[in-house]
Each structure stands twice: as structure tokens, then as C-alpha cells.
């Protein structure tokens, strides 16, 4: 038992390496937030492209569906290898300029940016499907009302449909964000020194997993509160949609903001 305790919970080792693991976690956070924001945006673009109306735009829809199918269907690790390999090779062959092939934007390393690109490509596809579910959950009468008022398809999407859809899908998007955050550890494989790599380096040097456990604690410090936020959002959503059901507990006044779901009066 002592060995287990020492292997995983050597607090003096954690203390000695706290700075290194924290530095790694800071990289993880940056990777997660930058990729997360980009994937949220890219996913919305894909979802909207997928909903474009009319026959002439059918090729755009097909391309979008194809993209989503491909990137949802292959492992992130594979994408990471393909992206990093391609960009560095193309740069070496002078096909693309160095600033793109070996990016060091904002002082971050090239593996960092390869990771951001790969995570965005992959999670954009996941999130596009989440947005799509949200868009399809907005009642058809909303589009009809917007169109009957003279709005174009684009205006109806922008002002009426997408704002309602996004409100509906915040919890699943947050879930995807949690998954993305954990998947940033894969970027270590192409050379990013994020928190898992930092912990693994300690384990390799010291034959002790406490650095990795410390990294796990950092993860949990972020992911558990996020999971609770998701739960809270979902229960708030249910309280709103189940009208006539039990009222929210006293003191938890209904926010004056717009309703998140449901067609009025339906």
C-alpha cells in the first residue's frame, strides 16, 4: 500500500515539480481555449453552410456533409500527424512560406499551432452536428414567420434561427469543449509540452506518477466545475420547457432574459 501511495501521491515530488506541471497545464489551457473558440466558430460556419437553400447550392451542402463525415470519422491523432507532417514537409519543399509551414505565431511553438489546426478541424465537425441539431429543433414556423416578413434566408438564419438554436445547444457544446480539452493531450505526440507530457517526463525521470496525478488534478479542477455548469444549464432548460411542472425553488427567480427554448404558446 505504501508503494501505491508513494507512486501516485508523493507530495514532496509534486511540490518540487509543481511549476513544471503548471507550465504544462497553462499550455493545455491555451490550446483548449484557442481551439475551442475556433472550433465553435468553424462548427457554426459548417452548420450554416449545410443549411443553405436551393438547388444551385447543393454542391456546397454535399461538400460540407462530406467534410463533417470525414473529420468525425477519423481519429484526431491521425489528423495531427497529417497536418503537422504536411505543413512541415510543404515548408521544407518551399511550397508554402515558413510562417505558415512552421508557425510560431504569438510566441507559441509550431506543434502548438499544428494542434490548434487539427483540434479545430476535428471538433469543428463535431460541433457542426450539435449546431445542426439545434437549428433543426427550432420550429419551422419561425422560419416561415421570418420569411413572411420579407427576410431573406440569410437574415432569417442570422436574426431568428441561429440565436434560438445556439441557446438550445449550449450544454452539448460545453460537453464537446470538455472532450476537446482532454484531447489536447494528444498534441504531446507531435511535440507540444502540455500538461500530460510534463507529467510523463517526470514519471520517466523519477519512476513516479505523482506528476501525472498532479496534472489530473489540474484537469479535474476545470472539468468538474464545467460539468456542473452543464448540469445546471440542462436543469434550467428543463424547468423552462416543462411548463406547468414544478416551479423552480423559491429564491431562484426566473431570469428576465428571453426564453431559451420552446415555441411560445405551443
Amino acid at each position, binding site marked *: 500500500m505504501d508503494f501505491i501511495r508513494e507512486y501516485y501521491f508523493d507530495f514532496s515530488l509534486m511540490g518540487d515539480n509543481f511549476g513544471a506541471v503548471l507550465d504544462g497545464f497553462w499550455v493545455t489551457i491555451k490550446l483548449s481555449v484557442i481551439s475551442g473558440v475556433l472550433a465553435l466558430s468553424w462548427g457554426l460556419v459548417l452548420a450554416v453552410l449545410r443549411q443553405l437553400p436551393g438547388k444551385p447550392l447543393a454542391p456546397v451542402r454535399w461538400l460540407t456533409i462530406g467534410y463533417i463525415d470525414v473529420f468525425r470519422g477519423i481519429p484526431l491523432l491521425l489528423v495531427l500527424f497529417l497536418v503537422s507532417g504536411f505543413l512541415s514537409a510543404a515548408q521544407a519543399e518551399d511550397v508554402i512560406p515558413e510562417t505558415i509551414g512552421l508557425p510560431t505565431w504569438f510566441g507559441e511553438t509550431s506543434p502548438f499551432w499544428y494542434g490548434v489546426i487539427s483540434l479545430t478541424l476535428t471538433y469543428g465537425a463535431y460541433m457542426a452536428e450539435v449546431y445542426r441539431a439545434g437549428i433543426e429543433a427550432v420550429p419551422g414556423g419561425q422560419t416561415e*414567420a*421570418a420569411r*413572411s*416578413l*420579407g427576410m431573406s434566408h440569410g437574415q432569417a438564419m442570422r436574426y431568428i434561427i441561429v440565436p434560438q438554436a445556439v*441557446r438550445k445547444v449550449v450544454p452539448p457544446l460545453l460537453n464537446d469543449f470538455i472532450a476537446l480539452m482532454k484531447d489536447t493531450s494528444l498534441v504531446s505526440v507531435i511535440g507540444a509540452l502540455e500538461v500530460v507530457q510534463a507529467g510523463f517526463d517526470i514519471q520517466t525521470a523519477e519512476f513516479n506518477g505523482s506528476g501525472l496525478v498532479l496534472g489530473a488534478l489540474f484537469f479535474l479542477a476545470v472539468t468538474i466545475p464545467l460539468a456542473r455548469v452543464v448540469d445546471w444549464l440542462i436543469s434550467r432548460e428543463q424547468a423552462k420547457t416543462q411548463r406547468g411542472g414544478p416551479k423552480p425553488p423559491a429564491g431562484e427567480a426566473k431570469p428576465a432574459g428571453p*426564453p431559451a427554448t420552446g415555441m411560445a404558446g405551443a
Partner: protein
Amino acid sequence: MEETGATAAPAEPAAGPMLQLENVCKRFGDLEVLRGVSVDVNRGEVVCVIGPSGSGKSTLLRCVNLLEPPEEGRILLEGKEITGKEAVEGINFVRRRVGMVFQQFNLFPHKSALENVCIAQEKVLDRSGAEARQKAEALLARVGMADKIGEYPDRLSGGQQQRVAIARALAMDPRVMLFDEVTSALDPELVKEVLDVMRELVDEGMTMIVVTHEMGFAREVARRVVFMDEGLVVEEGPPAEVLGNPQQERTKRFLGLVLEH
């Protein structure tokens, strides 16, 4: 309303029917919903369309504002063809002249009553925020919703929502208003407040096509009543004739069933 419509549709063209439907056909797959419907609607005229469920009444309205473009036949709005290959005017011409109110209200739930009435004015007619707001406040006051302009649809009764929806359509300065069973989803005690708003519109001379099950309302306000069944116009004429002394067997049977209870 016309005087505030600075950015509304251009001046009235020459006289003639506001709306002409000629042999309009619409099918969904194998289902023929409209099988050749011809109706004219004159300026300022109120036409009530009645008939059993599935008779094509709602589809007819949706064809008029091109939510469901008809497959055959022609529709002319202000004398200009808006359907088929010969269409001289497009969807924007139609939707800026034709307002529609739906059975399920279809208010935008993420916007307040005021924003519901403003959004299309600003985005479609390019009215300024202040101009749109002024118009919206006036219209909401007109439908008796002046004290609720900041409320979200969720907090409004069905009748209140429907009145906001009518204000929203009127804000676009339509020449024709289409009402698609606008009281069918309402609790009985809320029907009157919506019908009262519609009566006011009738008095102001708005051209209206009203799909309704409210026979009393049809008898009172309609210049003409059109009875539809199975995608065809079975009988049409003044309400006293169609409702009071129907000639066709199907009309008699329908009215018998509706008026019995």
C-alpha cells in the same frame, strides 16, 4: 398606416383586383392539395375561406405569399404575375405587400414584443431603430398591447401573442393581410380580443383573406365567403348566400356539422 410607410412599397398602381388566383394547383408528393382554385380579391375586400380540415385553405394562403409556390396556375398581385416562369415580380415584391398571421402565432421567443415588431422593419425595410420603434409602439398600442411591449412571448397569453403577431405583420405596411386560422389555437375567452383587432382592420379598409372556423365572424365581416373542399372551391358568394342559403350539398353538410354544436 400609409403615412408612416416612408420606405414601404411604391405608390398604388392602377385599379383592378388586388389579387387574382387562376387555376392554382399544389401537390405534396402524390397528395393533391389544391386542384385548380380560382379566386379574385378586390382592393379593400374581405374574403373568408371556410371548409373542413385538409380542404386546402391554409395551403391556398401559403401559395399567395409563396411560402408554397404553386405548381400550376397563375397568381397575380396588383396585376403582376408572381408565379411560374412568367413571374415579373419576385418573392420580395410579394412579401413586402402581403402580411401573414399564423395559427400558432410564431412570435420570435427570444425577442420582446417590441423587438418582434421592430426586427423586420429594420432588417428588411431599412428603417432606423427610432423609426421602427415609433411605428411598433403605435401598432402595439392599437392592438391593446401598449403596456406589454417589453414582455417576451413566453409571458403573454395566446390572445396577446396573436395581437402582437398582427402588429408585427402590419408594421411592414402590407397591402393584403392573410389570416390562417388565427383563433384556432386560442382559449375561447381569448378569441374575441383577436377578432376585435381584425374587425378594426376591416373597418379601415384592409384587403384581407381570412381562413377561419368562426362562422359568426365570417358572416359579420366578409364581403364574400369561399367554401373549399378537397382542394376545390365548391361555392362562393356573399355570406348571406353561402352561409345562409347554401346551394351545394357539401356546403350544407359542412355547415350542418359546424353549426350543430
